[in-house]
């Protein structure tokens, strides 16, 4: 793009076509006060504070909506501009409540700062203040309309960027106020991502978990990485005197790849560290009963028990690199399983075709013209990734194409084209696309697929694989297919979004097996919960079971030795995230540290030497594996957004918005009764269901807010599959 010159305040600035004057000024260090403008949002021009004088224009113009033109002469600091600015700020301040001493935003409030710098020096308002006493309380978000300046950042954030349209304006004129559409957050379908709270320039939208808890300026700010899912979001943790007060994303300031966007877990799940289910002491089973012991004793027992034994390692994938390396050194890498097994299978298939397991960084999608998203329920499993994909379309103009089974509220509305097919036909559909990319005259016989292929041709394409793909029985085959396809398009970057924070390191460090193949003598479960991370798996019979866990999990009752560890907010280290190495930092004190415990254990010399076996290369796409007989449905078991990593179970904040367990069925598949009996293999589950026409025929979705024992027993033998499970339903 060719740049041109714009003169702002006598300074020659370089501008690019399409940029607004405000953006040019910002880049050149000229401050123009703003309220309604936000870097991540579409400009609105509503607050009228960013007025500037343009030579030749009769009126003052808003810098946020004014596109820079060659040879434009802009003045931001003339007497006329200053007076107009002060006039507008005076109008805002006139009826603004003077609650700064108790307002949670005070200290980082944009109205305070702009008011001091550019506002009027004296008030001329003699009328009694107009009160707008409308407070709307949700479980996690509160709207105090008295403090609102109606800049509408929250509305644009919620409606356009997030695609939720929960917030809106009610009434008009001076009586206008912000509200969720029917006055209730839960009913309006709020996903509680907290972005509206983040962009609010004043203290109108409040984080209820932080309300009146502390003052913003006195807290210690630590930038760390959220480990609740594989998105690897950078988040600021504010703490005071070693106690965490809140988590903020700081949209627009955050330099992480998530740019400050968070989900309900990252924003409100921090209080897992204060969960009353936290484990405080090591426990040892003596005569069939768990007794409290000291850490030194526990270590002694542990050393004794693992020495020379083969270990069945059960890994949860939210551990840091340092911890994983230590685990590999202490327990060996050969006889391990993990909740990332599906992801491992996918990468195995990928490697067979590509010859490498390396996938690309998430930011590589910004270089492509078209992004093909393969997978479902990304907004539940990796909420921020689905958000970033949406924003890549809205802000960067990428072409988004979806291949999947279920409709997605967030992505479908911005998708250029979408192929929603039966789950059994995913691989066949991708094969059509491959053929279409090789042969320009190819016709699949399906118009939808043909237009899909057409919109990819000649474009630089990136693939994003995420969501339920890694929990499907076809993970490996899809891996092969995607790798094969990516070699046949321009660009051909593949981003595999790991389901858990450090899945990438786990699959690279360990040779994962299916839990049934483990043949050791001692079970070691690190950071995991069997029901949650290994649904449908029973601990193998072993002499001794060791549990490293931060919480009183249901597994504690079956363990012989339980050693408490820390949760992510208390860790220092690194993780291999979707966008490279990410840093995890803390300022908190911790009582127990996994790393310290492990460093006192002897290092094995077997694990480190064994090399990864060479994979045999194939040069063909994967094969369709899924079949369905008549009367059978393909079941997807989905942990709700709030329940992923059991956040809703351990975090009081998130528990308030956790969804409930429900089975979603296509109206045509649904029986007449209220409850259904769901059958998978030997497992049975009695459950109430809801008819949902967005679920395609022949599929069923079981949403759980947490994997409990009955769900785990129902899924016996299905691990690592949580999607594409053949099931039958019967009236109950």
């Amino acid at each position, binding site marked *: 793009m060719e740049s041109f010159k714009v003169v702002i305040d006598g300074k020659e600035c370089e501008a690019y076509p399409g940029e607004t004057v405000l953006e040019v000024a910002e880049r050149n260090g000229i401050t123009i006060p703003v309220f309604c403008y936000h870097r991540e949002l579409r400009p609105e021009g509503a607050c009228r504070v960013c007025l500037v004088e343009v030579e030749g224009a009769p009126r003052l113009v808003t810098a946020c909506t004014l596109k820079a033109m060659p040879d434009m002469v802009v003045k931001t600091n003339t007497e006329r501009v200053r007076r107009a600015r002060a006039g507008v700020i005076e109008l805002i301040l006139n009826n603004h409540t003077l609650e*700064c*001493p*108790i307002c949670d935003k*005070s200290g980082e409030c944009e109205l305070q700062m702009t008011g001091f710098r550019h506002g009027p020096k004296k008030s001329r308002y003699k009328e009694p203040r107009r009160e707008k006493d409308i407070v709307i309380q949700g479980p996690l978000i509160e709207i105090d309309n008295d403090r609102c300046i109606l800049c509408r950042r929250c509305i644009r954030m919620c409606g356009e960027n997030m695609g939720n349209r929960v917030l809106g304006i009610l009434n008009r004129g001076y009586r206008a106020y912000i509200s969720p559409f029917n006055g209730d957050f839960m009913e309006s379908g709020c996903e509680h991502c907290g972005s509206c709270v983040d962009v609010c320039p004043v203290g109108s939208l409040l984080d*209820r978990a932080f*309300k*009146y808890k502390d*003052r913003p*300026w*006195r807290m210690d700010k630590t930038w760390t990485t959220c480990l609740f899912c594989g998105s690897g979001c950078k988040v600021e943790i504010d703490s005071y005197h070693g106690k965490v007060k809140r988590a903020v994303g700081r949209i627009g300031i955050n330099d992480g790849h998530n740019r400050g966007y968070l989900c309900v877990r990252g924003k409100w799940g921090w209080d897992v560290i204060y969960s009353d289910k936290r484990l405080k002491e090591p426990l040892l089973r003596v005569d069939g009963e768990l007794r409290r012991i000291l850490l030194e004793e526990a270590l002694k027992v542990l050393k004794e028990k693992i020495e020379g034994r083969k270990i069945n390692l059960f890994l949860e994938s939210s551990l840091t690199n340092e911890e994983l390396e230590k685990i590999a050194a202490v327990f060996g890498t050969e006889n391990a399983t993990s909740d990332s097994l599906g992801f491992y299978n996918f990468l195995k298939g990928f490697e067979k075709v590509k010859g490498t397991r390396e996938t690309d960084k998430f930011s590589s999608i910004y270089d492509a013209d078209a992004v093909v998203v393969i997978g479902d329920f990304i907004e539940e499993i990796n909420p921020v990734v689905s958000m970033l994909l949406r924003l890549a379309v809205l802000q960067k103009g990428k072409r988004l194409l979806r291949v999947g089974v279920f409709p997605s509220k967030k992505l479908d509305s911005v998708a250029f084209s979408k192929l929603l097919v039966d789950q059994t036909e995913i691989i066949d559909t991708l094969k059509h696309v491959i053929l279409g990319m090789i042969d320009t005259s190819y016709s699949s016989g399906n118009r939808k697929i043909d237009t899909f292929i057409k919109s990819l041709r000649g474009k630089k394409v990136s693939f994003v694989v995420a969501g339920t793909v890694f929990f499907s029985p076809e993970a490996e085959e899809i891996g092969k297919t995607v790798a094969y396809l990516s070699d046949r398009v321009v660009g051909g970057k593949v981003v595999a979004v790991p389901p858990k924070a450090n899945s990438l390191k786990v699959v690279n460090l360990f040779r994962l097996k299916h839990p049934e193949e483990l043949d050791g003598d001692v079970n070691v479960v690190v950071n995991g919960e069997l029901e949650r991370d290994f649904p449908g798996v029973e601990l193998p019979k072993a002499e001794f079971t060791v549990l490293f866990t931060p919480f009183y999990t249901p597994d504690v009752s079956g363990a012989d030795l339980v050693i408490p560890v820390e949760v992510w907010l208390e860790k220092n280290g690194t993780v291999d995230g979707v966008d490279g190495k990410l840093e995890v930092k803390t300022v908190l004190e911790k009582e127990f540290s996994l790393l310290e415990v492990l460093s006192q254990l002897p290092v094995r010399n077997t694990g480190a030497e064994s090399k990864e076996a060479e994979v045999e290369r194939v040069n063909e796409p994967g094969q369709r594996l899924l079949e369905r007989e008549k009367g059978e449905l393909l079941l997807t078991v989905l942990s709700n957004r709030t329940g992923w990593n059991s956040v809703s179970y351990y975090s009081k904040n998130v528990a308030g918005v956790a969804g409930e367990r429900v089975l979603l069925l296509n109206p045509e598949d649904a029986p007449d009764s209220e409850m259904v009996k769901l059958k998978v293999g030997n497992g049975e589950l009695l459950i109430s269901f809801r008819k949902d026409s967005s679920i395609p025929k022949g599929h069923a979705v079981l949403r759980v807010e947490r994997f409990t024992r009955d769900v785990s027993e129902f899924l016996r033998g299905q691990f690592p599959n949580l999607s594409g499970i053949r099931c039958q339903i019967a009236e109950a």
Partner: protein
Amino acid sequence: MMSVIKKVALVDLLKGMSITLKTMFKPTVTVHYPFEKVPPRKRFRGIHALKLNPDGSYRCEACYLCAEMCPSNVIDMEMTEGKDGKKELVDFTVDLTRCLFCGLCVEACPRDAIVMTDIYEFSQYTVDKLILHKKDLMELGRYYQEWERKRR
């Protein structure tokens, strides 16, 4: 010679005693401190108190401005959301070991919630007793209320 006479006649002593004699009939100035106390001046800055409303509740809104103003980091507080949805003070600590009684905290307070009493005797045997908490400060507040009423 003269000096000898002076010595013999105890002139110096008499000179000195004359001053003693002179002041003997004047009123005494010295205060026998532990037994007698000087009432402090009206604007004396003694230890802090949390001023109370007539109904006995504290006025503080935990805005943290006093602590922000404090040059020696004396004040700290903890707050939370009360049951009625109002801001509630959980703890308010004043570390008297560091306080230099400048009174800036009182100046800063937007709610006239923190005040300084006339109490200047607050020595303790242990340091931790010199850290006043919300309870102590409210106790002092009641004292301050009483004192203010008397002063009027």
